[in-house]
């Protein structure tokens, strides 16, 4: 299936949602039907690299380290379709616990649950039936538990009800076009059991990790490994095919590369992917040692940018921001740090293929993505800085040599335009609690959360949002962002998102650099597997099997 096929599925579905309010929408049947890879085989053990979960309560952290694990063990109402037919960077939605859903009004969604779904056979839940009340409870907890950093993703939910055992009704405060995407995201509401919260107080402990997903946690040893075993109660008959998943925790880059070369893992060690720069280091060894590995290029949705204090001089002057953008040579940074592979990013990263506008189509703002030192200096002079200006760049390394290289290149390039920026390097925790949430003096540089839909990226332009690092308060942008959020018609919403990208490109509140390519890599024995962005490796493996 091609990219256009996949996006058509999503477009068709969302278009129907917008155009036929009140009509029943039958989501695609569970779409992970094996194709072209022979008959499915039950059994086997899949080995992969894991990360230590911070804990097991997905409602008390936004960390991918927890959510990546819960994607194996917990179900959601809806989810992103997975498999070889899905084009990476697209996220068609299908039912998970929900068998079907309707949208009777612009602000009401009614989900019909699958019948006979059972919790995993572990105490204190003990395999009882999962009902609408469990979904209602989970959503309520998601919205109200103190410390849920993700609650804002569903802040437009006014109430959730369970009118009968298999029906869940959401009422929103206003139309919210991304509602289903929010429910489908791997960081969204994992359906949890009230018994676990009652018994343990929260869900941080391993014993509280009881879901209805395809696998169950058998053991977890901090800093070492975790083992998942097949959930015998899983609600799709026959799935999952893989009996056991053994994940080894490995936090060291050299060690990870060695393990992969030595054949310890069946999948690329970053959620199925390997960063291109690391791939370049191990590619030749892998050709020798593991010649049957399968690979595919995937454009990342991780985007690093320079944020600026747009609420105070000198960066409240659009000419200074444009000069910043013109001073940065994005292509040179991509060549130097990503082997020249990847894509330049407009305000919505290029990795989100359905929503990102190509640079060339950004209108007047497109010219600020190409380096022009003469124009940069002219703009600075016009803004009252003929001799350039000083600045400081708040930064943390995240332990990444690539990020350090990028920061150094940016500093050098800014200096050539007369912007004398010095690096203000902070320890990770200090950076995260200050600069990452906009508490810095002039500039900051670093990677941003990698959302799977454009709305998350647009919150960094909204007043009052902690993610608004540049302190943007732009009525035009705010209006466009709110309108797209309320526009259910997909085509119209896309037009609005394109319009806001054009507007933001001209304003240059953030100087975004490229996103690199990653290489999706997996053992050829793994069948019916399709790579994608995001943490939902559990979802992508549910219908995969091993043919060794």
């Amino acid at each position: 299936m091609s990219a256009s096929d996949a996006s058509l599925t999503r477009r068709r579905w969302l278009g129907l949602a917008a155009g036929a309010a009140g009509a029943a929408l039958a989501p695609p049947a569970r779409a992970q039907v094996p194709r072209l890879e022979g008959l499915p085989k039950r059994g086997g053990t899949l080995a992969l690299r894991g990360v230590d979960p911070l804990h097991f309560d997905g409602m008390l952290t936004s960390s991918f380290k927890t959510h990546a694990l819960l994607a194996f063990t917990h179900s959601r109402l809806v989810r992103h379709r997975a498999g070889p037919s899905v084009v990476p960077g697209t996220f068609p939605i299908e039912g998970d616990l929900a068998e079907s859903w309707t949208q009777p009004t612009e602000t009401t969604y009614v989900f019909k649950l699958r019948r006979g779904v059972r919790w995993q056979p572990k105490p204190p839940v003990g395999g009882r039936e999962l009902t609408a009340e469990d979904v209602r409870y989970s959503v309520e907890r998601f919205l109200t538990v103190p410390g849920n950093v993700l609650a804002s993703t569903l802040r437009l939910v006014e109430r959730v009800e369970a009118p009968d055992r298999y029906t869940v009704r959401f009422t929103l405060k206003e139309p919210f076009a991304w509602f289903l995407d929010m429910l489908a995201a791997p960081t969204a509401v994992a359906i949890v059991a009230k018994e676990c919260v009652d018994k343990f107080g929260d869900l941080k402990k391993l014993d509280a990790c009881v879901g209805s997903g395809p696998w169950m946690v058998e053991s977890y040893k901090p800093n070492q490994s975790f083992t998942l075993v097949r959930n015998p109660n899983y609600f799709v008959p026959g799935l999952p095919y893989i009996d056991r998943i053994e994940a080894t925790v490995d936090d060291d880059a050299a060690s990870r590369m060695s393990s992969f070369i030595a054949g310890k893992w069946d999948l690329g060690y970053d959620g199925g992917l390997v960063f291109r720069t690391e791939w370049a280091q191990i590619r030749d060894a892998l050709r020798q040692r593991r010649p049957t590995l399968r690979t595919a290029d995937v454009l990342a949705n991780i985007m690093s940018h320079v944020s600026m204090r747009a609420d105070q001089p000198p960066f409240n002057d659009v000419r200074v921001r444009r000069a910043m953008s013109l001073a940065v040579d994005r292509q040179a940074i991509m060549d130097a740090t990503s082997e020249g592979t990847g894509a330049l990013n407009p305000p919505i990263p290029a990795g989100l293929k359905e929503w990102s506008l190509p640079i060339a189509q950004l209108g007047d703002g497109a010219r600020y993505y190409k380096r022009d030192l003469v124009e940069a200096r002219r703009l600075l002079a016009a803004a009252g800085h003929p001799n350039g200006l000083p600045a400081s760049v708040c930064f943390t390394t995240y332990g990444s040599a690539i990020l350090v290289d990028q920061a150094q290149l940016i500093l050098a390039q800014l200096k050539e335009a007369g912007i004398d920026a010095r690096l203000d390097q902070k320890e990770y925790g200090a950076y995260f609690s200050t600069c990452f949430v906009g508490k810095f003096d002039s500039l900051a540089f670093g990677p941003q959360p990698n959302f799977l839909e454009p709305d998350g990226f647009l919150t960094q332009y909204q007043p009052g949002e902690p993610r608004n690092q540049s302190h943007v308060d732009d009525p035009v942008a705010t209006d466009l962002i709110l309108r797209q959020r309320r526009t259910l018609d997909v085509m119209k919403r896309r037009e609005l998102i394109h319009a806001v990208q054009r507007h933001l490109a001209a304003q240059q509140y953030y100087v975004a650099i490229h996103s690199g390519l990653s290489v999706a890599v997996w053992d050829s024995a793994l069948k019916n597997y399709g790579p994608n962005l995001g943490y939902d490796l559990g979802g992508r493996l549910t219908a995969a099997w091993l043919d060794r």
Partner: protein
Amino acid sequence: MLRRYLARRLLVAIPSLLIATAIVFTLPRLIPGDAVQLMLAETSYAKDIDELRAKLGLDRPFHVQYVEWLGRAARGDLGESLWTRRPVLAELAQRLPVTAELALYATVIALVIAVPVGVLAAARQDSVADYVVRSLAILGLSVPGFWLATLLIVLPAIWWGWRPVTGFVEFRADPLGHVGQLVLPAVILGVAAAAALMRLTRGMLLEVLRQDYVRTAWAKGLAERAVVIKHGLRNAVIPVVTLLGTQLPQILGGRRIIETKIGLPGVSRFLFDAINQRDYPVIQGVNLLVVSTIVVVNLAVDALYAVLDPRIRY
């Protein structure tokens, strides 16, 4: 006498421990960002921060938190991790044996290399063997442990498609595998420690071998072995023991990179993650352990002086 001395030192250690705990309690809280801000990450709305801080008890006055923690620590309760809710003491009980075992192996390897080689270099001063040994010692001091570890992990994988054991093998599950997985990190740590110990052994032994009583021993016609080992080494080894005493806590508390590279669930990794997450109970617990170890090791070293040198009396 020794007992009285040790008792006196232990009493003196109490205020040292208290000061150390106060510093350990204070410093992480002075770094920008606390556990709550890191938990709430990019969506840290002010209201949520206050609410969660109150829930975790971090909104109370600093001195109240300190006194409460100290009281619980005195009763053997180091609290729970703010992030995982796992008891700190239980985590330490699991991790300390791994780190302690690694430290033991590294120390043994360091001693096995350093003392004989240092003695040989001193006994054959300015010979080819001496130059070779001294050069190797400089090399051992110069090569960073993390670099050596990286090479030892990466090169076998590239050359032979093999890498050392990934993950931690428990002794109960596989005794040989358990010891085997510790050999590589112990050698890396041991080589670095051995270089310094060897140079000190050589230097101190050379000094002792020039003393009058050694000359007398030679004049009496004693064998070289007796002169160098019995009369020389025993008197030269005290500074070596002191250095060893300072290296042991370093191995316990500061080997995060080696533990991470080899995949060992040790104390250093635990501490590093806790600092990144501002997990105060864990930081306090681990540092209390390290400080206590330093106190105990120093006491043991002092006691050993008297055993090694009969002239020392307490």
